[in-house]
């Protein structure tokens, strides 16, 4: 077993979006997990993911955990990566007043987004940015 979380964050520090791919069935897990959600395989290899995702739901975060107060208010995206994983994170690039969000964005769901890496407090985090 590898130190999966550490390696994931180390890759992010290097600017790489890496997931674990099941050697048996090919399913890619981003974020990484050691046992395949589809076939239960346990042989995994690191692969770079595309970073493309579709946003299915969004929420406005007005009072985040203390570590993210500087960003608030911000949007949060529930999304599926191109490789088929559920992954949720902050969503950048959505510009609308709250009362406009339904008509301006949500009615056009699913929207395309791309993961970018944001540095915060010395660490690197994957967040989404809407592709327009």
């Amino acid at each position, binding site marked *: 077993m590898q130190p999966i979380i550490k390696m994931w964050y180390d890759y992010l520090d290097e600017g790489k979006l890496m997931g674990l791919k099941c050697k048996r069935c090919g399913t890619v897990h981003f974020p990484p997990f050691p046992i395949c959600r589809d076939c239960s395989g346990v042989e995994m290899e690191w692969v770079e993911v595309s970073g493309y995702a579709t946003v299915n739901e969004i*929420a*406005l975060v007005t009072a*985040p*955990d203390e570590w993210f107060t500087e960003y608030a208010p911000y949007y949060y995206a529930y999304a599926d990566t191109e490789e088929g994983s559920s992954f949720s994170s902050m969503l950048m690039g959505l510009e609308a007043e*709250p009362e406009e969000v339904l008509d301006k964005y949500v009615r056009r769901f699913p929207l395309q987004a791309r993961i970018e890496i944001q540095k915060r407090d010395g660490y690197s*985090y994957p967040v989404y940015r809407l592709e327009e």
Partner: protein
Amino acid sequence: MGKQLARSVSIVGVGYTPFGFLQSTSAIKDFTERELISMAYIEALQDCGLEAKDVDAFYIAQYMPETLSHANSVAGIYADWLGMRMKPGFQMDGACCSSTLTLRNAVEMVASGSANVVASLSVEATTSNPIPGKPSHIREALPTPELWEKTMYGSDHGYVYWGGVPTSFDGCALEYARKYGLSMEQLDDVLNMAAYNNRRAGVLNPKAANAEKTFEEEAKENGFTTFMDYLRSDFNMKLSVTSRIKHMAATVDGASAVIVMPTEMAKRYNLDKRAVEVIGFGTATATAANQNDLYLASAREAYDMAGITNPRKEVDYFSPHDCLIGRQFVQAEAYGYFDEGEAWKYILEGRTAYDGDRPYHTSGGRSSMGHAWAASAGAEVAEAVSQMRGECGKRQVKMPPKTAVIANEGAGLNTNTTILRKQ
């Protein structure tokens, strides 16, 4: 039919404390978690005429004993408070569905034959913390933002959690509006009506924490002609794209208790007239899953076990887990209590209220009865059992329900379904 229990198990006793604030609500003032859980348990024992010595084992649901109560391994602590020394006791955490997880496990223990009478108990104190180094009735207030912060970490993966507090609960409401073409104004009215329906029941429930006045009374006091004008106004402040202050779960302290035994044994004890059978349950867990997938997974397991194929016709009481009030429509449709696109209309017309033709929980829900994290799910089971017995007084639904579904979710990671039937 899905998986079947080895023997039928019924709920015979239920109880829950007044939901409120340990620092100020008179019925529970100066209590600690210990008195809360004892109070609920005694009520459940008295409800079925049993004593602690008749109970073989117990489960404790407490979501965050270490974080909120500075205590771990709480089954051992509570055993003495419950008169259950030296008996098997187990603590479980599935966040806010913990107390139906413990019910599931209590039922399974009885069905397995390893025990006959088992208590599923739960407690949570969310509004104040004991102060380390002092007796535990000496407490400091826990502001709601801090509570949510403590609640939310652990949403995995080594990722620091970006989701934030309940103001982030727009997702399901906006998605529902997109799917069925509701305007922002219509969505706002539906959410306001959901809170209104909850409040109408809450003011009739003496154990509700957040229901001293009707919305009509509040509207009048603030110079509005109608409750809806009041709920659309800044008195009902917006906290996110869709959520307003009166939609939110009111975080409170409370405890609940449910006692189960074999259905055959309930007959021998002459408890069968008021007994309610647990005919199905289902549980699903996952990180960062689509919430609807979690509902469907646990609902499917439970409906299969219960042999229910058409919940729209076969279920006549539905208890949504409305910590986010938008769950009232998305859950009810995922569970098939309503057809797709139907729930919002029923809510808007007041038909999901306690006196409506398609009732939801009658406790006041999480916006009016309050939300005591782990303890709420068990309290909603108790409320459903009371309704099925026809014992809910002024908030009794028109026809005592035959088949009730209690939906619960916890921290977005857990869902649990409980199906009850009254013969």
